[in-house]
């Protein structure tokens, strides 16, 4: 029973929507980096949106299904075959017992989400099945899946009416967005005004250090700091502050050179200044950025951030309605 892992892929982890509530102890919320793609994958196979599936990054696993089920694959564009036959993403697919799923190389985006009817039924840890790699818990014993693992499934009595559910193209998230919207704030007062406008006018390129903890960027000019006498406890570098709590999505720039956006496995606190935070509506977009992708940060205000958030809620509501009525 369950799903046998024949090949693991680069770093395939079990994720649900996350584990909020323990960040004050240094345990981040984890969960799918592209929450919308994870939610849609689950809806397509008839799961609760919070069911655990696989987050697949850059290269895909090879899996053998030892029981019949429904699957859906969303997110990045990474072609896949079931027993050698090509299948489409963003739709639910019936899988017979014994069939094997294989992925081709990545074409666009960075992360795919695989949902299986019944969900992957590993134990809940602090209320979630998400893998937190640095803390070595959650998911499959706190590590990525590995060849030889058997992923246990929850009860899998799917409805025949669920087979072939899909989304019209116009409802698919656009993973090609290259503008990341930011609300300036937090410790931005450490920077000169000229440096702030330069930050928003330059192209920034995703560096190779881009993972679930944070996304690093390079290519822009070093930031300029307002002069100061270092406050007691902060440290002497102009980018140092008295260590404080970090916000998800906040952008820190150690020594003023390479911005890092903290994502869902973020460290909870530290001593580097942050210049603001990516708005909640754009956090999923970051999950789909490959290294070497060039992006621009766009400064917006709180009113615009809330409008973007409301748009995203409305889109998700429309998707739910479409899938349940189709």
């Amino acid at each position: 029973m369950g799903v046998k892992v024949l090949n693991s892929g680069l770093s395939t982890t079990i994720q649900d929507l996350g584990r909020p509530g323990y960040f004050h102890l240094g345990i981040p919320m984890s969960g799918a980096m592209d929450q919308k793609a994870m939610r849609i994958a689950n809806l397509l196979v008839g799961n609760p949106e919070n069911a655990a599936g696989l987050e697949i990054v850059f290269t895909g696993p090879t899996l053998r299904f030892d029981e019949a089920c429904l699957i859906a694959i969303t997110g990045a564009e990474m072609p896949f075959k079931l027993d050698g036959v090509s299948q489409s993403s963003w739709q639910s697919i019936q899988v017979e017992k014994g069939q094997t799923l294989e992925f081709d190389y990545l074409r666009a985006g960075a992360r795919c989400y695989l949902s299986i009817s019944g969900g992957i039924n590993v134990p809940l840890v602090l209320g979630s099945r998400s893998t937190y790699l640095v803390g070595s818990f959650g998911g499959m014993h706190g590590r990525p899946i590995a060849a030889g693992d058997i992923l246990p499934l929850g009860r899998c009595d799917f409805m025949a009416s669920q087979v072939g559910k899909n989304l019209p193209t116009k409802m698919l998230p656009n993973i090609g967005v290259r503008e990341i919207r930011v609300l300036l704030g937090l410790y931005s007062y450490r920077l000169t005004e000229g440096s702030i406008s330069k930050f928003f006018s330059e192209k920034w390129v995703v560096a190779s250090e881009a993972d679930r903890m944070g996304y690093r960027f390079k290519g822009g000019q070093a930031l300029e700091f307002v002069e100061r006498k270092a406050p007691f406890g902060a440290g002497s570098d102009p980018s140092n502050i008295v260590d404080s709590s970090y916000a998800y999505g906040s952008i820190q720039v150690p020594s003023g050179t390479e911005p890092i956006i903290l994502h869902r496995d973020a460290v909870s606190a530290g001593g580097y200044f942050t210049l603001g935070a990516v708005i909640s509506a754009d956090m999923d977009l970051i999950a789909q950025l490959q290294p070497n992708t060039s992006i621009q940060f766009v400064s917006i205000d709180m009113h615009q951030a809330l409008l973007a958030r409301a748009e995203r809620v409305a889109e998700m509501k429309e998707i739910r309605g479409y899938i349940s009525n189709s």
Partner: protein
Amino acid sequence: MGSRFTFGGDEHLLVECADEMSMRSFFKSLSAAQLIKKSPLVGLDEINAGNASYLIKFNPDFIKPAELLSEIKKIDRIAENSVPVIETRVVEIPVFYKDPWTHETGMRFRERHQDPTVTDLEYAASLNGYATVEEFINAHHSSPWFVSMVGFVAGCPWLYQMVERQYQIEVPKYLRPRTDTPRHTIGHGGCFACIYAVQGAGGYQMFGVTPVPIFDPLATHSHIDESMVFFRPGDIVKFRAISSHEYDAISADVRDGIFSLKTIPVEFDLREFEENSPNYNRALLDKLDGS
């Protein structure tokens, strides 16, 4: 100085009580966090308090940012005048200073250090005016430390030395962070000590290791509850220097599940501490020794 309020995207509000570290600022952030937790405000997901600031994660679908800001400003003013007294505990943490593992790691990353010709301990001792490493180590474990924040990765505590500012140990972080630090390393950066909960990247100077686990994902240690994390802001820590022999003995006890941590409950009054910190500390440590 009044607090500074600033949003971090549409889901976070950061309140910086002061831009420099002090016990007063820490107590204000802790009081504010407690008041916010008790308040009837809706839409609050999490409050992270530590050092001289606190961060609120909120859901703007349930509370408008402007409304949250005005409510938090009111609470922050109340916190300013809270009585700085907490019920807490003193915990003894054994430390094997000058251990072989942090030494080896330090040597591996020597080119990232300010002074590659000396060890982290030698560097910190001389920078802080101690003639020998032994005197420095003695200063490190003879006064207690206050846990002023918990977090980073998996429950790492930040520790603030409970001595007057001119006696506090201060060192810069490594020039470039290491990609490796042994689990349970006692580190130091700026004015803060820390204990690395798990092996991993880090930039603090390394002075020793403790055999005591402080993060417990598998729920195997009786001194750590179901949150997996041992420390809480407000805990008071007394380091005790141990030999390699005692390190091995405690490690064996931890492995066999028979280790118990020396801990006593205390009431901490910041006003009395500020009046005469050496006497206040001595009384705290006498209680620990007498337990």
